């Protein structure tokens, strides 16, 4: 009887799937209590469990181990020979804000203005962005989506890669983005003279100090008047950072700029800070470690920043920072929506010196901790959100396939436009008459 039900259920699922397929951009997720059995479980925080079970009930992890009792009626996915990992977190994307980078009207990450912290990424996240399914079928389940451009570019948001409204996707963290005045060059189109770069950077720092001073004054007024100071959106947006309630994400890359940023943060007594980018972090790793400020670095697959640097410095950077005692998360960084490559960025960090365990943490529990959501995400532990994936081997290896993805207990359809094109065109019909 149970077998028959399963068959009927399965057939119904197929029919539903086909119907959905023609109606929506992608098939629906499934929500059910499910036990993932016989798996090698990489908990990240509590070691590896061989031949174990992960029990998902009401979207949460209800049991982990070799001795989990499975309630009657729970669906079972046999994971024999497979591995379970917590969903990977890419701490630096513009997912949902960017459809095609060269087509301006499809990009929403770059509002006009130098000081616009009030611009909220979460507002503009398109839940149906084509890159979202492409990313999540690879096991990347959660992403920080970041506005760029200007100095204080806006408010970044942590989102889960499933949901129908930005609020459904919201994963519990927002942070203000500061592009710290920089003295590096942005690609081969940046043909400014050294002098112009220096001047621009000095001007930007003066302007930043000016804004910050205003924000501090505004915060005092705001406290004194109990929030009745009038409408100053950009200053209002900075108040939680000034009060040490919200994180400031400070993007900075060259060694000199990193040093300057550390000094600035100390001077201004900014309490919650994460450094992002940090391409030349290895050059000043001890200094960063001493400050105790954590780092989100990447992409790892980059060129060295200077001609005279060793060829593999970008690959080695994350490992060198970690070695110096810095708390390091790894992001993928991509101009072409390839956030699915996050595990390969971590893998390259390992190939060039980082401890494998640390690299895995750098894309799971560390970003979860940095964003204050480690009670829900980043590891396989009882009570946490069932946001995880099942795969055939080491997720850093390109041979490995991801077979299942769960986000908040929702089992994701393992399709994206890229898999659909494969299915349609592998054996095209009609082909060519021979």
């Amino acid at each position, binding site marked *: 009887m149970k077998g028959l039900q399963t068959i009927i259920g399965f057939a119904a699922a197929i029919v539903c799937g086909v119907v959905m397929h023609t109606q929506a951009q992608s098939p629906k997720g499934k929500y059910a209590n499910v036990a993932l059995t016989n798996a090698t479980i990489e908990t990240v925080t509590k070691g590896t469990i061989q031949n174990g079970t992960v029990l998902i009930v009401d979207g949460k992890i209800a049991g982990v181990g070799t001795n989990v009792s499975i309630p009657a009626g729970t669906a079972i996915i046999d994971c024999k020979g497979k591995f379970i990992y917590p969903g990977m977190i890419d701490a630096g994307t513009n997912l949902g804000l960017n459809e095609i980078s060269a087509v301006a009207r499809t990009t929403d990450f770059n509002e006009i203005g130098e000081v616009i912290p009030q611009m909220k990424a979460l507002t503009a996240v398109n839940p149906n962005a084509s890159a979202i399914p492409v990313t999540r079928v690879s096991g990347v389940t959660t992403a920080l989506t970041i506005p760029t451009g200007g100095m204080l570019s806006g408010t970044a948001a942590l989102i889960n890669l499933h949901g129908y409204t930005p609020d459904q996707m919201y994963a519990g963290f927002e942070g203000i983005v500061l592009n710290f005045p920089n003295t590096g060059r942005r690609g081969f189109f940046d043909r400014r003279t050294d002098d112009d770069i220096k001047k621009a950077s000095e001007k930007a720092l003066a302007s930043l100090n000016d804004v910050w001073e205003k924000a501090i004054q505004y915060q005092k007024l705001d406290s004194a008047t109990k929030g009745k100071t009038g409408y100053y959106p950009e200053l209002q947006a900075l108040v939680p950072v000034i009060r040490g309630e919200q994180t400031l994400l400070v993007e900075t890359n060259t060694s000199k700029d990193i040093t300057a940023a550390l000094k600035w943060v100390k001077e201004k007594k900014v309490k919650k800070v994460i450094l992002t980018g940090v391409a030349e972090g290895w050059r000043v790793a001890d200094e960063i470690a001493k400050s105790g400020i954590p780092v989100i670095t990447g992409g790892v697959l980059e060129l060295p920043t200077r001609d005279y640097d060793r060829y593999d410095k970008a690959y080695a950077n994350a490992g060198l920072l970690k070695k110096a005692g810095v708390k390091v998360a790894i992001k993928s960084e991509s101009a072409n929506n390839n956030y699915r490559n996050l595990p390969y960025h971590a893998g390259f960090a390992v190939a060039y010196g980082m401890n494998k365990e640390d690299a895995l943490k750098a894309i799971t529990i560390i970003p979860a901790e940095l964003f204050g959501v480690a009670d829900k995400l980043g590891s396989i532990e009882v009570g946490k959100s069932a946001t995880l994936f099942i795969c055939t081997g080491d997720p850093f290896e*390109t041979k490995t396939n991801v077979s299942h993805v769960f986000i908040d207990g929702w089992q994701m359809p393992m399709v994206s436009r890229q898999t659909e094109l494969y299915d349609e065109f592998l054996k095209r019909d009609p082909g060519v008459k021979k």
Partner: protein
Amino acid sequence: MKKLLTLFFSSLTLVSVMAQVDKGNMLIKNGTVITITKGNLEQTDVLIRDGKIVQIAKNIPAPAGVRVIDATGQYVMPGIIDAHSHIALDGINEGTNPITPEVSEEDVINPFQIGIYRALGGGITTVHAMHGSANAIGGQCETIKLRYGNFDPDALKMEGAPRTIKFALGENPTRSHGEGSGIVPRTRMGVEFVIRQAFSEAKEYSEAWSKYNKNKLMKGFRGAPPAYSYRHEVLSDILNDKIIIHCHSYRADEIYMMLKVCKDFGIKRIVFQHVNEGFKVAPELAAQGAMASVFSDWWAYKFEVYYSTAYNAAILTRNGVVTSINSDDAEMMRHLYHEAGKTQKYGALTDEEALALITINPAKQLGIESRVGSLEVGKEGDVVIFKNHPLSIYGVPMFTIVDGIVRFDREKDPDDMRLVVDPKQTIDNAMLRDKDSDLDHCMEGAEFILDSELFNANKQ
């Protein structure tokens, strides 16, 4: 100009002239030899003499005076070939006209670029140094070997490699010329037209010369020769399959168009570059013997790559198209082995198939498969030695050897590998990647067009 340059450089130093003929001797001991064409050989030695592979066998005794590298526990594979790159060049786009076959990258090779050494660090030994994609018919390209350390630009050229030329379809030529300069092509219709027009004129040109050459032998002939045009000489060579077309393309419709143009003009040798939607016309590509050189997974950076799939290489391979994976990028070229590995996730290619994408297949596309692209006796001594399997994420190139000479040694090389120091460059000059750039590398050097008033007016 080219001759002048050659003269200048060859008179510069005797050392550089000697470097040009520099070929090495080497014995690589006891590695897992991945031949590509003849399977894997465990615990096997490879002997290189005078820059060529002379023996692949177990327990080859070391000849006197030959350097021995112990590759025990490591993987020995042929040097990786990138069929689409713009490194080692001082000029990429002659963006002044939609048709510029008269220019050639061989005149602007820059042997000093640090990018050459960095590519060696990723196991690359041969590179197709290409003209950019601003023009429908761009300039001629140069196949080079990464003989880093030479000061003579000519020392990098792969002597005797077939001539190749860059073509470009779609957004880049239409925005450069239609939008940028207000001349045809502004659309894909225009791109087809300017190519057909150029070929038709070249046909007339070579017919006029044939007629003249025939007539001038006749008694009493008094006609004048047709006007000489290097542009039409090059185009005629394309029509006669003396030059391989490497055609930048993305969308299936434009690929299909170019296949028809080739058919109509009797052109047999064409390799499509990027060819993101090649998977949609894979049967047509295979039927015509056209080849494809693709990205592993790049997409979504502009509209014509929006409907891409990372399964492209697998679909093309399964349909019988000779396919390679290229970089078009100074960073990505450092890990083409990793890019090839992605075809195992996206389409389950075997190790042999995946590694062919970066060795023997690009060699076929450049017409150099009898010389490089596999480890076989008689072939050139271009070898990479990997710690861990090259398709593993943990694979790290340890030695890169070109013509039997070690050009990269991970353990021994110093950090700073520049050949020269630019006195104008400040020590503090850091180059960061432009994350939000909407321009691809193929358009380097065409900025002057894209910054033009007309271009910006058209963009509104």
